[in-house]
């Protein structure tokens, strides 16, 4: 019978070790031989702590004591207890007491969970890759959105964003019975600047003007590159027609001094026209037409200095 039981234990696909009360090894199955490269006849009757030195740690010794004395069952997980039997595999360990002829024994069952660890590691790596890809896609989505609504050269809002925002600001102005101001402006003599210094220089001028307009506008205003050297500034929630002059005077001030671009010092000026909903027009297109016409007048009146005009 004993022989049959030993054959069964040797046939198990998990490590089985039996210890006596002195913690000496009295049984070591074939699986244990395979996994540790230690043959049972070399280690029988030797203390487990001499054969597997990890088990001399205090918590294992305390566990052996509890199992023998109190008959408790103890469980050790492979995640916390690494390198329990060798350096390459992970094992869960169950310790329990066996009683026979008034003697107590400790049964150790080592269950190999290495494949679980590998699968989880692989899954985690997939999840992390997916996570990274997802983050990259979200970042790209943001860039695409920015490209769709912002001018590539200056970073200012483009015409698409202008039409989207302006129609909602117009609705807001109608609802709140406030003024919506629109400044249409361009750079004086821009064609001549381009012809004299080249397109690259002209681009730098546009970037400078865009930044200058952003600096001059209020936080709630929107600066948009409408096309070429033309910019539009939307001024929502205006309480009074004259209030646009605060923004205009900042632009005048910032264009007073010549600027240095690509080692060339140049004087830049802007002509602008302004129109207001609901005083000058009812729709955004009408506001644009009115402001454009006012800008034309401003340019005719003072074509070489920064000047803003509103048609009465």
């Amino acid at each position, binding site marked *: 019978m004993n022989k049959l039981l030993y054959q069964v234990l040797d046939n198990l696909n998990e490590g089985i070790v039996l210890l006596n009360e002195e913690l000496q090894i009295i049984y070591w199955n074939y699986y244990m031989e395979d996994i540790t490269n230690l043959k049972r006849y070399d280690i029988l009757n030797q203390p487990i702590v001499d054969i597997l030195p990890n088990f001399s740690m205090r*918590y294992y010794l305390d566990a052996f004591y509890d199992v023998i004395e*109190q008959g*408790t*069952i103890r*469980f050790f997980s492979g*995640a*916390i207890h690494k390198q329990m039997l060798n350096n390459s595999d992970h094992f869960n360990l169950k310790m329990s007491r066996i009683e026979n002829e008034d003697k107590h024994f400790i049964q150790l069952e080592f269950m190999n969970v290495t494949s*679980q660890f590998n699968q989880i590691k692989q899954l985690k790596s997939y999840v992390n890759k997916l996570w990274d890809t997802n983050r990259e896609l979200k970042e790209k989505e943001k860039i695409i959105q920015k490209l769709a609504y912002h001018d590539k050269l200056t970073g200012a809002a483009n015409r698409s964003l202008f039409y989207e925002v302006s129609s909602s600001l117009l609705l807001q102005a109608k609802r709140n019975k406030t003024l919506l101001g629109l400044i249409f402006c361009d750079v004086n003599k821009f064609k001549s600047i381009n012809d004299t210094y080249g397109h690259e220089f002209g681009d730098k001028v546009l970037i400078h003007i865009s930044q200058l307009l952003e600096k001059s506008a209020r936080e709630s205003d929107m600066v948009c590159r409408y096309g070429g050297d033309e910019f539009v500034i939307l001024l929502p929630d205006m309480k009074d027609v004259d209030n646009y002059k605060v923004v205009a005077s900042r632009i005048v001030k910032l264009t007073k001094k010549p600027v240095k671009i690509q080692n060339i010092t140049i004087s830049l000026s802007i002509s602008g026209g302004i129109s207001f909903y609901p005083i000058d027009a009812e729709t955004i297109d009408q506001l644009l037409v009115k402001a454009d016409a006012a800008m034309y007048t401003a340019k005719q009146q003072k074509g070489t200095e920064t000047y803003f005009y509103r048609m009465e």
Partner: protein
Amino acid sequence: MGNSDMTQDILKELFNISVGRAAGILSDIVGQKIHLNVPNVKILKASSESYAIDEYISMKKNGTLMVSTLSFKENYTGKASLIFSAEKMKTFISLCLQEEQNDSDDMDFNDVDFDIIKEIGNIILNCIIGETGNLLNISFKYTLPEVRLFNAMEFKYDYRNTDNVYVLILYITFVIGDTEIEGAIIVDLSLHSINDLLTRIHKLEESLYE
């Protein structure tokens, strides 16, 4: 039943000794200082005081509970469950393994996580049930804990349907590093078992006055 101040104080004292030992073992294993404390103990009748039990498991608002349950065998029937909020246990697992919790980590638990909780549940419940048994001279036989996830509603349903009438509830706090985790232990004993336990506690109580 059995909720006199003295009975509760004795139970609290016993369980604090037990969890103190569990904390020592856990600290040794994970190589970090872990504190465990039982600030409160109650014995409640499941059928008439279920509202108080629900109130006691205040973590239920967190949705998912992680429950490690061992079953008594032979002379004592019933089971003991260690209950923590699943979300907090995820943090605890990372702290145990000294791994950083990734943004990509969601609330899914894998087999390895369950094994870690099984080991922790085994240590805490062993100490509580084992040492209480020792002090009261009772020999409990029980299984390894099974770890399961419940939503609070399922868990409530599960234990109310047991035949056992009385439950012993321990409120437990777990401190590892800067993280504090609150949980509960429910020891679900039959009337006969709980009577036995209380008789032994009363004997201890009487011996204090002798």
